[in-house]
């Protein structure tokens, strides 16, 4: 292929070398940055100058910073995103793609027309179906099309809008004209990434960004928000809008969390919503709260397991029925994916004339439908020159014998002309490359028609094939700058809406989130308790004394055995030191042992992942550091445990500081108190029979694993004695490790939990926590002492602790039943397909 450099290497003047000099732009494609004569196009001049002025070193550093900021900024941190950027959807690259006012306004007009047209088609297909009846839309496009959902036919969106958010992929052809490659109408993705790109790039190039008149993105989000609010507000003041996400397993959860924060819509998953009396409700701690609008980020097919008969946890059973009753505004309505039918664009020029009496302004990428004789002929004759693609179902498997497949069902195929997108300069591996690019642009419905976001994602890949395959993780993106000929107003929503979202969040929160936070607290505490215990064991094993000369070692090992962390002693004899070593190693690193350190840390991370939009960025970093545990099993276990304990303490500190005393924090802390209470009870119950047998060292060890040894020394200044030790571990409300402290904290928390009715009587959990607190305050430890190797009068205490353990478990169940019972573990429903007909 003939190639020409981006710039003319023999340009007059022989000025200093440009970074763009060695870049070649393939023949026969449009070059975004440079005109034919090797001069940067007008809109590129300042960017080319800025890139050259920066030089390779600074560009390299910037690219690193871009990568980091993209990860660390915004709403949340995506732990799936590898730090090197692999696996990041649409990894951001620093050089923006500028478009002139003229170019943009043509695009804008064309996109608005196209969005209007697609919305009219949707309204017809899900309504009177005149296009079908008059043959303007071939029958196969409806009847054989998996994007057409029969069950949604006749559902009229309560807002009257069949399309709220629309996106399109465009490319610029060799002639300089933009063409549409694909339409997105079910739940278009990329909006959040476009926003995040802008935030990062505007900080990265503050001068260039401020100096150049670039149209801002924020007003578009304001428009989208206003549109959604106004529509729902017709039914109710201050409507409840939620963003429905498939959850943290979605590869683009980052985007959903960012949009949720930015727009101020609570981020919910299918299991957070329920349908009652023909309406949708959000399950919150204080009860069910009606939902007016769903900003949908799950696919059409996943939306309603009831109506669509799919076992999917992402959707809301009964949602389509609610839509049918016009009791919810869904953006976009379920079934809107019809407008994504790959072959539909082929019919748009005709449909545009017939429905709107206008010519289609934006060209399509040239393609033919094999359902037409002409299309089938082309596909057959030019099989190797054209791209054969599914016409209806993009995910349809391809037959090995393509010609036979086309022959037997021509309507299911289409033929595309090869795509030759324009190239853009991309900074990669220390130099600039020319890469093919697509533009993803967005439109939203307003009362006055569609509005186009002035900007978007420029998507690039190493070659056109990868670009068209469209796997976000293998693509890069750039910020699109739409230049303005008028001064732009500084405008950002990051301040205002962000605050609104926070206020709403703190007053109440979804039960699912509270449940995960409670368990996060419990696992954190469980990890801490276990690590303290193991650390005490390893500290003794690494001392110079022989194990059999350490009297309290067996005492500590027995505590581990009681918690099933290491196997119980056999009936006769014991374990060799090698066996013990292997057992302790497994207690640290064996992932399939539920009580091993690594398994519990994994549960901490899982619970945290589910609430990551509630955790600060710093907390996230700390949680991610837990991953390092187990990376190096050869390291000194004591160091490993010390480091991990340090990390956990850092998290606790950040949670105290960062989470304020919101409901979320209360649930996490309740989890910690419940777990610590249970841990303390079991330590003392297991330890009591043996604590007197092996000298004072066992009492010291008990204080050590309870993290109370300093407090004891400060308070009693005496040798270790049973009664004072137990007093400190059980009754001393000023010792944050004592059982009484846990009870008093629980008691304080439950008083502040939301309740549905005016408080008249204490709730069950309030009475239960108060009963526990009172009981421990009244506990009498006098007479308890070590005498001839055993604890004298220990039995009443044992019975008391047994009761407390049962009550604490009962309390935990009560909290779950009252606040969290609407949350059930997966799978939370079963789909009945019906009885077989005989």
């Amino acid at each position, binding site marked *: 292929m003939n190639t020409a450099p981006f710039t003319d290497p023999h340009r007059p003047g022989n000025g200093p070398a440009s970074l763009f000099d060695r870049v070649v732009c393939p023949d026969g494609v449009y070059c975004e940055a440079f005109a034919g004569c090797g001069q940067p196009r007008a809109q590129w001049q300042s960017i080319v100058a800025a890139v050259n002025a920066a030089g390779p070193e600074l560009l390299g550093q910037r690219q690193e910073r871009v990568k980091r900021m993209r990860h660390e900024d915004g709403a949340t941190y995506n732990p799936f995103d590898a730090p090197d950027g692999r696996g990041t959807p649409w990894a951001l690259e620093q050089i923006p793609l500028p478009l002139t006012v003229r170019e943009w306004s043509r695009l804008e007009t064309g996109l608005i027309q196209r969005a209007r047209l697609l919305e009219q088609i949707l309204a017809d297909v899900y309504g009177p179906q005149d296009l*079908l*009846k008059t043959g303007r839309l071939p*029958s*196969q496009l*409806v*009847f*054989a099309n998996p994007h057409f959902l*029969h*069950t949604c*036919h*006749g559902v009229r969106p309560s807002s009257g809008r069949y399309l709220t958010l629309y996106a399109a992929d465009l490319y610029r052809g060799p002639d300089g004209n933009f063409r549409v490659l694909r339409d997105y109408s079910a739940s278009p993705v990329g909006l959040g990434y476009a926003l995040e790109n802008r935030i990062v790039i505007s900080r990265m190039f503050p001068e260039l960004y401020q100096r150049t008149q670039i149209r801002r993105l924020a007003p578009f989000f304001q428009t989208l928000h206003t549109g959604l609010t106004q529509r729902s507000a017709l039914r109710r003041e201050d409507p409840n809008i939620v963003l429905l996400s498939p959850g943290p397993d979605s590869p683009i959860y980052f985007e959903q969390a960012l949009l949720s924060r930015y727009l101020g819509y609570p981020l919910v998953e299918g299991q957070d919503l*329920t*349908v*009652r*009396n*023909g309406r949708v409700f959000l399950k919150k701690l204080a009860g069910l709260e009606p939902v007016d609008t769903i900003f949908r980020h799950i696919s059409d097919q996943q939306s309603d*397991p*009831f*109506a669509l*008969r799919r076992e999917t946890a992402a959707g809301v*059973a*009964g949602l389509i*029925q609610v839509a*049918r*009753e016009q009791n919810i505004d869904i953006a976009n309505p379920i079934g809107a994916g019809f407008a994504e039918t790959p072959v539909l664009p082929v019919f748009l020029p005709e449909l545009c004339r017939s429905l709107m009496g206008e010519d289609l302004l934006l060209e399509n990428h040239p393609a033919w439908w094999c359902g037409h004789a002409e299309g089938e002929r082309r596909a057959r004759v030019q099989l190797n020159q054209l791209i054969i693609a599914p016409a209806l179902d993009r995910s349809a498997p391809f037959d090995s014998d393509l010609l036979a497949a086309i022959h037997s069902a021509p309507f299911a195929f289409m033929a595309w002309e090869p795509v030759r997108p324009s190239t853009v300069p991309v900074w990669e591996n220390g130099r600039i490359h020319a890469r093919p690019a697509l533009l993803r642009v967005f439109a939203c419905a307003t009362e006055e028609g569609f509005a186009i976001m002035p900007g978007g994602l420029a998507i690039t890949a190493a070659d056109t094939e990868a670009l068209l395959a469209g796997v976000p993780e293998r693509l890069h993106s750039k910020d699109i700058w739409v230049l303005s000929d008028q001064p732009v107003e500084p405008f950002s929503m990051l301040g205002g809406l962000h605050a609104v979202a926070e206020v709403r969040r703190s007053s109440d929160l979804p039960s699912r989130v509270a449940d995960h936070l409670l368990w996060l607290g419990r696992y954190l505490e469980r990890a801490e308790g276990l690590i303290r215990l193991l650390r005490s064991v390893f500290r003794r094993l690494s001392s110079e004394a022989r194990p059999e000369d350490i009297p309290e070692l067996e005492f500590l090992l027995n505590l581990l055995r009681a918690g099933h962390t290491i196997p119980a002693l056999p009936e006769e004899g014991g374990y060799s030191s090698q066996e013990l070593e292997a057992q302790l190693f497994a207690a640290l690193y064996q992932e399939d042992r539920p009580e091993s350190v690594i398994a519990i840390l994994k549960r901490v991370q899982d619970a945290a992942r589910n609430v990551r939009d509630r955790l600060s960025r710093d907390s996230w970093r700390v949680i991610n550091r837990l991953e390092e545990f187990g990376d190096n099993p050869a390291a000194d276990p004591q160091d490993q445990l010390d480091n991990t304990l340090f990390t956990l303490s850092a998290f606790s500190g950040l949670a105290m500081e960062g989470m304020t005393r919101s409901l979320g924090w209360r649930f996490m802390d309740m989890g910690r108190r419940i777990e610590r209470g249970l841990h303390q009870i079991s330590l003392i119950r297991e330890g009591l029979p043996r604590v007197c047998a092996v000298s004072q060292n066992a009492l010291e060890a008990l204080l050590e694993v309870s993290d109370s040894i300093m407090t004891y020394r400060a308070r009693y200044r005496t040798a270790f004695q049973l009664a004072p030790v137990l007093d400190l571990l059980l009754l001393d409300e000023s010792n944050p490790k004592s059982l009484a402290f846990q009870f008093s904290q629980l008691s304080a928390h439950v008083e502040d939990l939301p309740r549905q009715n005016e408080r008249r009587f204490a709730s069950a959990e309030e009475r239960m926590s108060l009963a526990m607190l009172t009981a421990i305050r009244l506990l009498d430890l006098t007479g308890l002492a070590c005498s001839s190797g055993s604890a004298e009068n220990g039995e009443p205490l044992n019975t008391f602790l047994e009761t407390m353990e049962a009550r604490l478990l009962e309390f935990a169940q009560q909290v779950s039943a009252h606040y969290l019972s609407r949350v*059930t573990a997966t799978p*939370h*429903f*079963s*789909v*009945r*397909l*019906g*009885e*077989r*007909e*005989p």
Partner: protein
Amino acid sequence: MKYRITHTTAYQYSEPASLSQNELFLTPRATARQQVLQTELVFDPQPQYLHRRIDYFDNIAHVFMVQQPHKALSLTAVSTVRTGRAQDPDAASTLPWETAVQRLRAHLQPEELDASQFVFPSPMILFNPAILDYARVSFPPGRPVLEGGLDLMGRIFTEFAYDKSASTVDTPVAQVLATRRGVCQDFSHLAIACLRSLGLAARYVSGYLETLPPPGKPKLVGADASHAWVALYVPDEGWVDLDPTNNVLAGESHVTLAWGRDYSDVAPVKGVVMGGGVHTLSVEVDVARVG
């Protein structure tokens, strides 16, 4: 013939179910051969939400939800209908099947356009070469379309064993063809798959069949069951109901509930239940002659 049909579906749950959502196709629709005199739905417990609609295929669908915890749920549909005799088209004088396929492709008449939606694969009916091969035997070139349809029905009736243990509610058609056994739902799906692979239009009909006791024995109440068969589109003639399970044209003893592309469009009772633990289900159908 006038019938009173009582169809009871009862669920028992091992643990309370907190929410149960159901869609019913249990109310018979009026057809050219069938008059619906009276229909009624009875629930226990009473649902908090009930909604009736006409679906995409003009069937009568109900959605109901029970929203308080319940350990049992039963619903009974009672309908009175009057059915007419089977159609009696002259099979030999129907169009050659290839012409029927052409007519459906061109779909110049609104009725043909409507029928053409039953030509394509649907959620439970997918095509494969074996199905096409099986269908071709009944449709040599130029054969009148209804003759072919009757022949196909006869072959399925004779070559396939009725076997309740051979299939489940979502057994794929390919498996039915491979094992040569199944129940009325499977035979209907297979017949539809055969007809559609040729380019003909066929739909799934859900309903009831009156069963007559052996001579001299009294009829047992509740021993009937729901039934399913196939309707084949014959241009200029209309839809002809074929019952491959019994190798007959659907007649006076066939009561129609609803039709669609396949079972999944018209399952008499289907739904989603939250909680509930293990379910047990019992279904009782009684088709009784009245008047």
